[in-house]
C-alpha cells in the first residue's frame, strides 16, 4: 500500500509539473501564435488578390445563405470570404474553400477581382500524395487559374492544349485536379451570386 502511494505521488508530481509547464508555455505563446496566424492569412489573401490593400470579412451566416442560393452542392465547403479593398473601393473578393481531395480536405484560397477575373488561386494545405497530387501546390498548376473568367464553369482536360477556362490535369492526379477545380468553381458561383 505504502509503495503504491509513493509511486502515485511521484507520478502525480511529474504530471503536475508537466501540466504547469504546458499551461505556462501556452499562456505566453497563445497571443503571439494568433498574431502569426493572422499575419499569414493576411499575406495569403494578398497573394491571391494583389490589387487589394486591406480586407474585410464577409459575415459567416450571410456567406452560407449566399452559397446556398448560388446552388453550391455543399455550402459548408465555402469556409470564409473576405472583401478586398483598395482605400474604400472594393477591388475583389477572396474565398477560402475546402474541397475534398484524394487524401482528405484541401484548403484552397481563391481571389476574384470585381471585373470577373480570377486573380489567383493558392493551395494552402492538403494531404495529397507527394510527387502526384502534391504538385497542386506548384506555380505551374496554380498559375493556370489566373486570368480565367467567371463567365463559364471551369473544366478539367487530361490531354491536349487547354482552351478557355480549361484546366490541364496534373499527370496521374485527376482527382486532385478535379477537387481544386470544383473548389474554384464553387467560389466563382458564390462570387457571381454576390454580384448579381
Amino acid at each position, binding site marked *: 500500500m505504502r509503495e503504491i502511494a509513493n509511486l502515485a505521488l511521484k*507520478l502525480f508530481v*511529474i504530471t503536475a509539473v*508537466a501540466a504547469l509547464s504546458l499551461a505556462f*508555455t501556452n499562456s505566453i*505563446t497563445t497571443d503571439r501564435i494568433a498574431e502569426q496566424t493572422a499575419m*499569414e492569412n493576411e499575406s495569403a489573401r494578398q497573394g491571391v488578390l494583389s490589387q487589394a490593400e486591406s480586407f474585410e470579412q464577409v459575415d459567416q451566416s450571410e456567406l452560407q445563405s449566399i452559397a446556398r442560393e448560388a446552388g453550391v452542392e455543399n455550402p459548408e465547403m465555402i469556409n470564409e470570404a473576405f472583401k478586398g479593398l483598395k482605400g474604400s473601393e472594393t477591388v475583389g473578393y477572396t474565398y477560402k474553400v475546402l474541397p475534398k481531395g484524394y487524401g482528405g480536405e484541401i484548403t484552397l484560397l481563391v481571389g476574384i477581382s470585381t471585373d470577373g477575373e480570377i486573380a489567383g488561386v493558392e493551395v494552402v494545405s492538403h494531404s495529397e500524395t507527394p510527387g502526384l497530387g502534391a504538385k497542386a501546390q506548384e506555380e505551374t498548376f496554380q498559375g493556370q487559374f489566373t486570368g480565367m473568367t467567371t463567365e463559364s464553369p471551369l473544366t478539367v482536360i487530361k490531354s491536349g492544349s487547354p482552351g478557355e477556362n480549361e484546366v490541364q490535369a496534373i499527370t496521374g492526379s485527376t482527382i486532385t485536379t478535379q477537387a481544386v477545380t470544383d473548389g474554384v468553381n464553387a467560389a466563382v458561383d458564390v462570387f457571381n451570386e454576390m454580384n448579381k
Partner: protein
Amino acid sequence: MKSFLKNLWNGIIPENPTFRLVLGMCPTLAVTTAAINGLGMGLTTMLVLIGSNVMISLLRNFIPDKVRIPAYVVIIASFTTIVGMLLQAYVPSLYESLGIYIPLIVVNCIILARAEAFASKNGVLDSFADGMGMGLGFTLSLTVLGSVRELFGAGSIFGIQILGAGYEPALIMILPPGAFLTLGLLMGLLNKVSNKREERSRVND
C-alpha cells in the same frame, strides 16, 4: 571527452537506429518521400532526442522504476509540445519547415527506446551524446533513403533535377511500396557489406 565521442559515434554507424536497431520505422517510411523531408525530420527528431535524453537522465533517480514508462511518455510529449509552441510563436519560419514533423516525433519509438535503454541509466553528458548520435544517425539514414526515393521517383535530389527530362520517374518510389523496397534493399546491402568486413577481419586473425 572520450566516452562522449564514443557514445556520439555509436548512434551514427555501429548502432544506427534505422538499419541496426530498426526503430522508428513509421516516420522513416512515411517521411522519406524526398531528401529534404528526410533531413528535416531527422534534425527535428535529433533536437527532441537530445532534450528528452537530458531530461530523463536528470530525473533518473526520481522516476520510480515501476512507473517509468508513463513518466517517460508524459515528459517526452510535454517537452515536444512546448518546443512546438515556442517555435510556432517565436520562430515561425522554422516552424513552417519543421513544425509538421513535431506531432509525428512524439510517437517515434526511438525517443522512448533511448530513454529506457540509455538515458535512465547514464549521466547527463553521456545521454546528451547518445541523443545527438542517434539523432545524427537517424538523420543520415533518412536523408539517404529520401535521396534514393526522390532520385528514382522524381528524378531529383533536394529539388535539383539530376536525371534528365527523358527519364520517366517511377512513381512507385514515392509511394509506400517504394519505401519498403528501398529500406529493405538498402538494409540488405549494408548487411552484406558489414558481413564481408567481418569475414575479412576474422580471416586476418
